């Protein structure tokens, strides 16, 4: 954080105080942002989003999504992309025990995902799978405010739910690519432990189809305009908010205005 904000200068304006408080809160919450969106991505270090081609090919993009769709509708993905309680197993049966999603997608006490889903897959069939997130149980489904349910959807309808920020956890195309390519819960789908089938594409092929779809304008049907921008990365989006709040605070800080004529 900027030293100026860390030092306890006087803040005559309630707005400046509010902005500073918001900055502190934002800084504190930044690492938890991923959890809030149901995203368990790693930091994404080294991840470079795929730019949209200068000459996007709609048919190539649609073909890539058709391959992605085969994975998205596989039980490894679909069982948690549901309207309410999760499903389980290769036949997408009702989950035992009867857990609920919860506001954060991690269940409702006393039956939370972590009650049975630990930090690692069991080597034994029929045991709940596990996931390690910073040394703690990381199993979850999308949060209540952004369920990202795909049940009953296919083709263009599924594509649009996946692509549009209003229904995909407020992700830009860049963030969506990062989620699908680097998220360790997504990657779990290809390491599900014994007794669970794998998605129809291997992870490398899936990642390449995601990139091909985005590179070709992320089309969902034959008529709508192709996307021309992949939008911002999560870190970029957070930085924009911080910069905006800093600007607001500076505009209401007479000390800052004196020192920065």
């Amino acid at each position, binding site marked *: 954080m900027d030293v100026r904000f860390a030092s306890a200068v006087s803040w005559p304006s309630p707005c400046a105080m509010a902005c500073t408080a918001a900055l502190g809160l934002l800084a504190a919450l930044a690492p938890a942002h991923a959890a809030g969106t149901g995203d368990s991505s790693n930091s994404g270090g080294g991840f470079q989003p795929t730019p949209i081609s200068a000459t996007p090919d709609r048919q190539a993009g649609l073909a890539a999504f058709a391959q992605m769709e085969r994975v998205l509708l596989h039980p490894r993905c679909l069982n948690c992309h549901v309207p309410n309680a999760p499903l389980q197993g290769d036949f997408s049966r009702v989950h035992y025990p009867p857990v609920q999603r919860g506001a954060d997608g991690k269940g409702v006490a006393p039956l939370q995902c972590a009650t049975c889903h*630990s*930090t690692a897959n069991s080597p034994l069939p029929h045991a709940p799978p596990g996931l390690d997130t910073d040394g703690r149980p990381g199993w979850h489904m999308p949060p209540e405010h952004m369920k990202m349910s795909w049940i009953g959807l296919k083709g263009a309808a599924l594509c649009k739910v996946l692509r549009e920020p209003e229904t995909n956890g407020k992700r830009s195309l860049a963030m969506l690519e990062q989620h699908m390519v680097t998220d360790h819960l997504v990657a779990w789908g290809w390491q599900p432990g014994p007794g669970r089938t794998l998605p129809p594409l291997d992870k490398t092929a899936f990642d390449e189809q995601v990139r091909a779809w985005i590179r070709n304008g992320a089309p969902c049907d034959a008529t709508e305009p192709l996307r021309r921008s992949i939008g911002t990365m999560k870190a970029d989006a957070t930085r924009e908010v911080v910069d905006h709040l800093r600007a607001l605070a500076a505009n209401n800080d007479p000390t800052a205005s004196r020192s920065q004529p």
Partner: protein
Amino acid sequence: MISFRLNGQPQQVDVPGDTPVLWVLRDTLGMTGTKFGCGIAVCGACTVHIDGQQRRACVTPIESVAGQQITTIEAVGGDRIGQAVQEAWVKHDVVQCGYCQSGQIMAAVALLSANPKPSDADIDAAMSANLCRCGTYVRIHAAVKDAALALA
């Protein structure tokens, strides 16, 4: 060496990090109140509390609870909710063979800690994750309701 707090006391164990908590409790520390049932987190007999939340000890690697508080059946009666649950269990003579009961009690305490006034449906949903081959479910249900009343 992995450090944690067990029933309020500091504890260290020298075991591989992927050793399940249940094995550490029963084999390393000799605390056999927590039971081995299915070994795949389906029956609930091995339920313990980690930082107040119920967990299946049979699938929980000990390294994942480093620095955290483990509470087992041996100490759950030390707080108000645990004591009320145990008293209700005795009053309703819940136990038949008893093998699942330490897990049942840990689950009941977790339920009442999260939801002090559970409805019948809440009790059924929460306790359905703990199996009882003797079929003591009706008495379990009654005891949980009674404990909730006693705590009100």
